[in-house]
């Protein structure tokens, strides 16, 4: 396979993974209005969980990590999603119950930082700062493909998962449950006054979003067979936010466009640009500056995003007018 094909196929996998991540955040922030400023933490929880579940025992390597159960990937991915959902439930169960959105955001950032320090500085949990490596490629023990062919298999595999999650996301957001979530986003107090249990409904959104983040993380660690704390620094959350804001909140296709534009074309594709030898960190720093500027520009000039939320319309039959005889205002 030529180099360009390999490069593009890699970008496609990144695109699929980011797409899943943006959909998850869309459920939390775009639809339900939860300012989850530590979204990337749930991605990491998913990646590490899937990693230690699919990897063999740590004693066979020179790393230190818990578990090492050699589970099949699909089982590990589902467990990773559940673990992240429970983590989201725990955090949301405390924070969503009592806190206004601005304080909630602060709590989220703090918790994310704590989890990050815990994982990075505890070498026995997930091999600390060195990161977890040598995670096996899903299904390749059966398939025995060469790396190039396996890449295309992984494109198809992650694509299937992405499409499935996309359909699920659409089903959720276009349902009465999705409407109740949007009501939470618009005015929590009003929704509550009409008998909506905001904690229950927002926790559902929180847990689904966390599960999506974890599935994205599981796919990533399976794809590159490693993850380290430098791969999910807290600012990464804002890359996903940028994708969501620029693509369009509460629009499933807007999330796709945002995932394609921001993390894939803007961040991942530019990682392969030649680095300045005197200052190798310059590229990453400039990217963060540019993402901040993009968020501001997007909110200023097109706050609804490139593909705005689609208006729900009743397309079924219209019943006969009620006969009140009052003309429309």
């Amino acid at each position, binding site marked *: 396979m030529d180099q360009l094909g390999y490069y593009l196929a890699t970008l496609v996998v990144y695109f699929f993974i980011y797409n899943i991540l943006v959909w998850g955040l869309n459920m939390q922030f775009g639809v339900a209005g939860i300012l989850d400023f530590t979204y990337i933490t749930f991605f990491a929880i998913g990646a590490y969980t899937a990693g230690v579940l699919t990897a063999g025992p740590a004693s066979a390597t020179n790393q230190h990590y818990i578990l090492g159960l050699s589970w099949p990937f699909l089982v590990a991915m589902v467990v990773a999603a559940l673990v992240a959902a429970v983590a989201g439930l725990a955090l949301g169960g405390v924070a969503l119950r009592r806190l206004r959105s601005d304080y909630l955001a602060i709590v989220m950032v703090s918790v994310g930082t704590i989890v990050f320090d815990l994982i990075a500085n505890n070498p026995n949990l997930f091999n600390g700062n060195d990161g977890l490596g040598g995670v096996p490629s899903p299904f390749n023990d059966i398939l025995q493909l060469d790396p190039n062919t396996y890449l295309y298999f992984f494109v198809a595999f992650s694509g299937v998962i992405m499409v499935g999650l996309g359909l699920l996301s659409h089903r959720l957001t276009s349902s*009465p449950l999705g409407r*109740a979530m949007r009501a939470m986003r618009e005015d929590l107090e009003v929704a*509550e006054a009409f008998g909506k249990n905001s904690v229950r409904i927002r926790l559902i959104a929180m847990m689904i979003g966390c599960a999506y983040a974890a599935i994205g993380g599981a796919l990533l660690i399976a794809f590159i067979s490693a993850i380290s704390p430098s791969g999910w620094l807290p600012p990464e959350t804002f890359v996903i936010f940028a994708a969501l804001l620029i693509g369009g909140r509460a629009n499933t296709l807007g999330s796709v466009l945002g995932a394609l534009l921001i993390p894939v074309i803007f961040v991942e594709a530019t990682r392969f640009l030649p680095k300045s030898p005197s200052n190798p960190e310059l590229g990453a720093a400039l990217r963060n500056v540019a993402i901040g500027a993009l968020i501001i520009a997007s909110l200023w000039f097109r706050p609804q995003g490139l593909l705005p939320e689609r208006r729900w319309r009743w397309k079924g039959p219209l019943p006969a007018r009620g006969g009140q005889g009052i003309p*429309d205002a």
Partner: protein
Amino acid sequence: MPDNILEIDRVTHAFGGLKAVDGCTFSVKRGSITALIGPNGAGKTTLVNLVAGALKCRIGSIVFDGAVISGRPSFQIGQRGLIRTFQISRELGNLTVLENLLVVVPHQRGEGLLNTIFRPAIGRNETRINVAKALGVLDTFRLYGHRDEYAKNLSGGQKRLLELARAVMAEPKLLLLDEPMASINPALVAQIAVRFQALRDAGITLLMVEHNLSAVDEVCDDVVVMAEGRALARGRLAELRLNEAVVRAYLGGVHANRPAG
């Protein structure tokens, strides 16, 4: 069934040192249209917020339809069928007018997570039934033609109407209306008054904070006057006009049959 749908007993609520509601006691008869009137700062809206659970009622007790609701979270009060409107319209702006009605329908099975994922037909069927009802309600409140408009784009008066339509859609037992007639044109006030009477005839009790005394005179069976956080007097408006304390506290120089303010 108890005769009174709502019993407010010695309810007190202070903001800092200011007692907005101070030992307020009165009841609302089932099937009545009761007005709550009083000067600005009498504590009417605070009381509404306490009854609806938007403010936590810590002192005194509130019994709704035989159950103590004081201290309960507002969504539980809403689920019991006590529905309130807001003094300043609070439409769900980025939902359409029709969706503002659909979302408030109580006890929707389509809002369950498992039903949504595995049995989406439940939500679809519910929606079809609710849409038919909602369109009828919108028709009544002159919003039918605006059903697909974002609620944020409505005019101020239309938002007031949406507030009422939404409350009706929520299938309330008791409607708590905070100045429902404010910023609605006089011709429409009369029609809404008729609408309120129809709601009462359908078995819904209404308690409304209102300054439009001619409207109060027209539709309300019972009037409670609040002043300085307490219920000062109650009766029909005509009787209250003869009550010296009420006149001093609120009615002042306002003549009969003219809207206040």
